[in-house]
Every structure is written in structure tokens, then in C-alpha cells.
């Protein structure tokens, strides 16, 4: 098996991002249930905490990667026509890049 060509890298990235997303989700849900921010200052300060800010950035980057691999698998399985598949993959990729950059902008502006 080759790391670059056989899809092993994709397989590993899908799993690694899955584990990170799962751990972060549990951390986020526990925080929102046990210590939910009651006002803007509290919410902003929590997101601006360096470690929390980095954890959020890693989360959305993982969502971008994991979402791309998932969308790619689904499109390749169900869209047979080459042209339509190319269009669907392009739109999905563009959408995810756009979303991740938007979320990065929001988080970095708060964290900086």
C-alpha cells in the first residue's frame, strides 16, 4: 500500500479528524450544558482564551477535511456522469473552503 496513491492517507485523515471532532464535540457540549455563557463578555472571553481558540480552529479545520472526504465519497458513489461529478465535487469543495475560511476569520478576529 502506498501512502499517497492508495487512499491510505485519506482513510487515516478521515479517522484522525473523526476522533478530534468527537472529543471536541463532547468538550463543547459539556461546557454548554454545565457552564453555559450567560452574557456576551463571558462568551467572547471563553472563545478568546488561547487554548479554546486553537481548539475551535482545529475543530473547523477537521470539519473541513472530514466533510470533504465524506462529500467526496458520497458524490463519487452516487454521481456517475463525469461532468456532473466534476461540477458536484467542485461545488462541494468550494463550499467547504468558503465555510472554513469564514469560521477562521471569525475565530481569529476574536482571538487576536
Amino acid at each position: 500500500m502506498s501512502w499517497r496513491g492508495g487512499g491510505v492517507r485519506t482513510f487515516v485523515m478521515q479517522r484522525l479528524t473523526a476522533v478530534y471532532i468527537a472529543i471536541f464535540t463532547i468538550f463543547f457540549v459539556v461546557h454548554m450544558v454545565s457552564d453555559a455563557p450567560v452574557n456576551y463578555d463571558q462568551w467572547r472571553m471563553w472563545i478568546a482564551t488561547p487554548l479554546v481558540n486553537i481548539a475551535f480552529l482545529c475543530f473547523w479545520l477537521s470539519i473541513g477535511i472530514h466533510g470533504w472526504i465524506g462529500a467526496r465519497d458520497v458524490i463519487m458513489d452516487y454521481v456517475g456522469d463525469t461532468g456532473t461529478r466534476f461540477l458536484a465535487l467542485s461545488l462541494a469543495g468550494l463550499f467547504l473552503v468558503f465555510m472554513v475560511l469564514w469560521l477562521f476569520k471569525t475565530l481569529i478576529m476574536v482571538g487576536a
Partner: protein
Amino acid sequence: MMKSGVYKDRPRYLNLLKIKLPITGIVSITHRISGIMLILSIPFCAYLLEMSLHNAVGFNTVTQQLAQPLTKVILGIGLWSLAHHLFAGVRFLLFDIDVGVRKPSARMAAWLVIVFDVVALVAIAGWLL
């Protein structure tokens, strides 16, 4: 779609209602459907996050919006999709380390995912209502 001329008379159930999936198949396809729904929910998350972090007025707008009945229903569907995607995903991750690969345990784990789904639904409904 796969092109094959070998089995011309094979049954092709294009009528989705006629396809009877085993429980493992149901958990598999709903993992995909919940994944697509979660991707489609990203712009709403990004919008809410941006507005809630913009200023105090934005934060209050978001909390008020989240208290609306319609928003609660949408949020509930989103959270339940997330819960199901997580549970079914853990089952798939366990396959990678050879846990639950054989048919009886694979079926039992699929039913366990359904049980967790029901628990999550009750928890989400309780939290939102």
C-alpha cells in the same frame, strides 16, 4: 452506476420503498444522510457564531433566536444528526480495530446505535423544551 451486462434479470429496486435494508444497512445509510445534513448546517453555525461574537446586541439576538420554537426544532434535528453521526461513527471506528466486525456483533452494535439515538433524542428534547 456500475455497468454490467451479465445479470440482465437481476432485481433492481429503484422504488426506494421496496428496498428492505438490514439494521446494519440502515445505520450505514443514515450515517451518510446525517453527514450530509451536518455539512449543510455549517453555514448556520458560522452565521450564529459570527453574530454572537460580534457584539452584545448580536449575542442577545442569537440567544433570542435560539429560544424561538422553529429554531429549536431545527437545532434539535441538527443535534440529533450530530449524535447519530457520532454513535454510528464510533461503531465504524471500532471496526478499524477489529471490534464488532463479525455479523452477530455488527448487528448488535447497530441496534446499540439505535438505542443511543433514542436516549439522545430524549436528552435533546428535554434540554430544548
